[in-house]
């Protein structure tokens, strides 16, 4: 038995160990702490690549925590699926890969960005706890375990959003986020209780295996969709997003993006793998599509008018979540109809999933460049900035790459994913793809505004002392830049190796179930 079978558990164990050893490592000095922060994040990223390769090569990986089989058989012959399992299919592995890349970039960036502040041992510990929560959410195959990791990620992110606790705004943002997120998590718990009450199981595959849509299941579905949409910042539950993203330190915002994607993952895991074809009517897919379109449009129109750079980007990330909801919602709409699935549904899902990785890396990079601007120029207000392209050439270069990619300019990767979404949603209702196009134009407008005011224009005398940011921050940003350029240069490779297996795994509900309960309960 090779050690590869333990990869799913190691993905969670390594950052968790990182979190609890972080205070000890900090006692050895600044260099040891930074080494630990970057080293453990890099190790997690390497493990996620290995896990992804393994899942692509040998199919869904099941890992039972502290046992051999996922169920417990009693001498009387009764069998209960009570063990905690991790179930990693291609979609989970893809999410873990994306998340750990964002975590690595944020960690490298934070070594320099945070060096002026005290309390960094706690920062490091919370950063790893947030990573653990995010990875646990995407790797688990157990509903209650999902709730536990959701809460680990939430509690860690409350602490990190309020990290600059001498700023009243940071505490206020953290409190707002906490109220929304705790209510969301409790709704998830109540939904899990409903499902448990019906089926005596919290194992996702075991529940999906026997699920018949009844009254209790509908209530549970409403609770889950509302709570997880709240957690990933969809309109009309988006009000915490701009505050939390703005007030968190930039490296953390990069990771918070990945954490909001983990909630999105939960939403789609519930819709596709647990409820799947038994959803029956088109109400749920259309709810998701409408939420997506509203998020796209409201998010971007709020973004265009913002003056503060991180707030602009945060509103803009609300609108990008909308693209993924739109793509995957159209996929869900076509789920029960093989012809529609082949015609446009699968394309929409590929677009949605491809946009997910594009969004995470581009938006992560944009927040890091905003952090770099704040670090170098001391302001996040667009009215105070100007002409910084001369002082900060590398940051400018990376900002341009990220902004062009997320706005969907050809030949960047964002263009590919948006094109897939446009052409597939056009087949459902042309108005959907028109909305998506308008949003894309407004996105470009908002980034032209940032680029023009912050980087171009005459040099301001007050900003003449501004220098390029230190090497650690540039390195953190370049990790994400390299990923963007890689995805841009090899769109066919990334579509067929990264995106398609993930989309197939999400559609294949029977495969998800039989990977666990294939041999019967």
């Amino acid at each position, binding site marked *: 038995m090779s050690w590869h079978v333990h990869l799913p558990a190691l993905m969670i164990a390594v950052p968790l160990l990182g979190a609890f050893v972080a205070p000890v490592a900090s006692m050895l000095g600044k260099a040891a702490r930074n080494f630990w922060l970057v080293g453990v994040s890099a190790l997690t990223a390497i493990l996620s690549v290995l896990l992804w390769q393994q899942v692509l090569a040998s199919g869904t990986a099941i890992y039972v925590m502290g046992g051999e089989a996922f169920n417990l058989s009693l001498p009387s012959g009764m069998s209960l699926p009570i063990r905690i399992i991790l179930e990693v299919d291609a979609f989970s592995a893809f999410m873990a890969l994306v998340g750990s890349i964002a975590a690595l970039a944020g960690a490298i960036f934070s070594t320099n960005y945070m060096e002026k502040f005290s309390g960094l041992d706690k920062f490091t510990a919370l950063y790893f706890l947030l990573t653990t929560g995010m990875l646990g959410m995407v790797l688990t195959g157990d509903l209650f375990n999902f709730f536990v990791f959701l809460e680990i990620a939430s509690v860690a992110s409350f602490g990190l959003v309020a990290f600059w606790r001498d700023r009243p705004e940071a505490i206020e943002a953290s409190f707002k986020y906490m109220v929304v997120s705790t209510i969301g998590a409790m709704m998830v*718990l109540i939904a899990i209780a409903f499902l448990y009450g019906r089926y005596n199981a919290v194992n996702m595959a075991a529940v999906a295996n026997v699920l018949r849509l009844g009254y209790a299941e509908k209530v549970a579905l409403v609770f889950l969709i509302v709570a997880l949409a709240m957690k990933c910042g969809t309109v009309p539950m988006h009000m915490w997003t701009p505050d939390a993203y703005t007030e968190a330190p930039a490296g953390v915002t990069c990771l918070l993006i990945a954490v909001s994607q983990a909630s999105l993952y939960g939403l789609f895991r519930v819709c596709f793998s647990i409820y799947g074809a038994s959803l029956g009517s088109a109400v749920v897919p259309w709810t998701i599509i409408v939420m997506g379109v509203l998020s796209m449009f409201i998010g971007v129109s709020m973004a265009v008018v913002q003056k503060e750079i991180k707030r602009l980007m945060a509103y803009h990330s609300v609108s990008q979540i909308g693209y993924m909801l739109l793509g995957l919602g159209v996929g869900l709409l076509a789920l029960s109809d093989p012809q529609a699935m082949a015609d446009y549904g699968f394309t929409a899902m590929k677009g949605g999933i491809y946009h997910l990785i594009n969004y995470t890396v581009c938006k992560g990079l944009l927040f890091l460049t905003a952090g770099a601007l704040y670090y170098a120029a001391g302001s996040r207000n667009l009215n105070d900035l100007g002409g910084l392209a001369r002082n900060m050439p590398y940051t400018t270069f990376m900002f341009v790459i990220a902004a062009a990619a997320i706005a969907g300019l050809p030949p960047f990767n964002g263009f590919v994913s948006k094109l897939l979404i446009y052409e597939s949603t056009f087949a459902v209702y042309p108005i959907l793809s028109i909305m998506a196009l308008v949003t894309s134009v407004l996105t470009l407008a908002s980034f032209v505004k940032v680029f023009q005011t912050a980087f171009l224009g005459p040099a301001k005398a007050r900003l003449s002392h501004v220098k390029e940011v230190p090497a650690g921050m540039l390195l953190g940003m370049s990790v994400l830049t390299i990923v963007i350029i890689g995805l841009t240069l090899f769109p066919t490779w990334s579509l067929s190796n990264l995106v398609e297996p993930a989309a197939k795994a999400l559609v294949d509900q029977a495969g998800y179930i039989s990977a666990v309960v294939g041999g019967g309960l």
Partner: protein
Amino acid sequence: MTGNLPYLVVGIIFLLGLYAVLFEKNLIKIAIGITLIEASANLLLIVLGYRAGGSIPVFTLAGKVEKMVLPVPQALTLTAIVIGLATSALMLSLIMMLYKHYGTLDVREIRRLRG
């Protein structure tokens, strides 16, 4: 009817908590609302795990029994209580710091972030 009474109580506690979070103006009352919602979720789990005449799932202590309850809901509830404790503690400390910064607990006056 009496069999469904616990679920009715769960519903009432949940709605009370939601009302407090949505309509109260005092931060402490909002925090109380959130703990009420937590309590209703925990109560729901416990009620689901109850079986009339069932015995504790500890083999050495239960003696000779006909029915033994599945311990999963109890385990879930214990975990949920611990998580609830952590969030409540953090929430109260955040409220404390908000009071230090703003000098008030009224949500209508703590509004530096908007738009």
